[in-house]
């Protein structure tokens, strides 16, 4: 289990990285934390001519607030999502999701940008990004654009990032007064790929929930926004009836993959149970 041969370059800027990619005629792979790329190389599941290391690019690091949005550099490590006070305050679903992501040593090295760009359908951070209505900052030779998370995740392992483009940062709108969140997943063992997961965000007003945002993961090829369930909860107080209606709505929201190990009926059942539990335990953002 040794990687095939490749060339390696450590890019100093996004422009550097993109031109290296272009020079390699696209036979290149960007390396951020490397925790998905390096095993796939070791397993010889891919064999690019060039690896472009993004870890030294200043534009991809840092966590800062701008105009009501938190900008999180793509190279931000998972462990920072767990520990950084700005992320905890302004992108709380990332903080809530982080303990479920793999294991401590993986979190020390894996990056938020890497997780989002990799877009594994069972991955936690993509769902958190969708639930928080984050926007993804993508650099291309044409310039920089921001793509809403809802449009970013296209299919299994497929995002709005075109070949050669670089995910630079994640922008998360700051919580508003009354914001509540919930995150949970059902996995076989701690740190495993979730069988089903849920990220929920809403604004709790006296009259009920507003701006309900629900993203479920491991129930489709990418994080799935549960629109019918959101609608079922909007304007209502969280009670048993509201939860039951949201759970029932998942029938329309989800079309989970069906395979012998995880039949679609099981994923749908688990998604309902999990959503119910998350809704019953929503927490105010401090």
């Amino acid at each position: 289990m040794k990687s095939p041969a490749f060339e390696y370059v450590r890019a100093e800027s996004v422009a550097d990285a993109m031109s290296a990619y272009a020079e390699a005629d696209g036979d290149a792979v960007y390396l951020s934390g490397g925790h998905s790329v390096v095993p796939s190389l070791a397993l010889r599941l891919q064999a690019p001519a060039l690896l472009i290391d993004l870890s030294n690019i200043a534009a991809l690091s840092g966590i800062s607030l701008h105009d009501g949005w938190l900008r999180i550099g793509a190279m931000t490590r998972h462990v920072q999502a767990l520990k950084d006070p700005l992320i905890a305050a302004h992108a709380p679903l990332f903080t809530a999701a982080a303990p479920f992501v793999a294991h401590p040593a993986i979190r020390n090295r894996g990056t938020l940008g890497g997780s989002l760009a990799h877009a594994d359908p069972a991955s936690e951070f993509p769902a958190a990004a969708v639930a928080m209505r984050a926007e993804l900052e993508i650099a291309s030779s044409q310039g920089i654009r921001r793509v809403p998370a809802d449009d970013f995740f296209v299919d299994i392992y497929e995002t709005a990032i075109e070949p050669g483009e670089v995910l630079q940062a994640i922008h998360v709108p700051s919580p508003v007064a009354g914001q509540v969140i919930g995150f949970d997943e059902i996995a076989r063992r701690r740190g495993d790929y979730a069988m089903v997961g849920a990220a929920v965000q809403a604004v709790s007003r006296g009259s009920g929930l507003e701006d309900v945002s629900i993203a479920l993961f491991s129930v489709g090829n990418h994080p799935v926004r549960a629109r019918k369930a959101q609608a079922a909860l909007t304007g209502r107080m969280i009670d048993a009836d509201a939860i039951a209606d949201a759970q029932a709505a998942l029938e329309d929201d989800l079309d989970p993959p069906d395979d012998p190990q995880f039949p679609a009926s099981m994923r749908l059942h688990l998604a309902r149970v999990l959503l119910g539990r998350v809704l019953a335990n929503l927490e105010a953002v401090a």
Partner: protein
Amino acid sequence: MELNGSQTLAATPDQVWSALFDRAVLEQAIPGCESLEQTSDTSFSAVVKLKIGPVSARFKGDVELSDIAPGLSCTLSGKGSGGIAGFAKGAARVTLTPQGAQTVLDYTADVAVGGKLAALGNRLIKATAQKLTGEFFANFNTALTCEETAPTA
């Protein structure tokens, strides 16, 4: 693993039928197709490069059409070797039904992968196969439409 689905194509069954045997259309339709050579009236040899997330492999193999009921149905089968990544094979029974000016194409496919791809990729193989099948028919539809508007080759 079994996949099935249905596509409504903007062409008549006759047009769809001839496209199924058209090297140029198939080349455009097969996701990641790098080359497609016709080896007989009903067979082709193909080189396909697939990139799905962390997996990128080049498959060399053959595509064959059989059980042919002209204008109505046939079986498209293919087998490709991805070197040490393993192999993929599959057969799809394709049935055409006219629907006004359009054609409904129904398919039932049995797809299998072996070797390293099966050993490591099981969690994602079915979704990937579905995605590729979807891409194939979307491309096929596009190619068909272009073929219609373009001068006949």
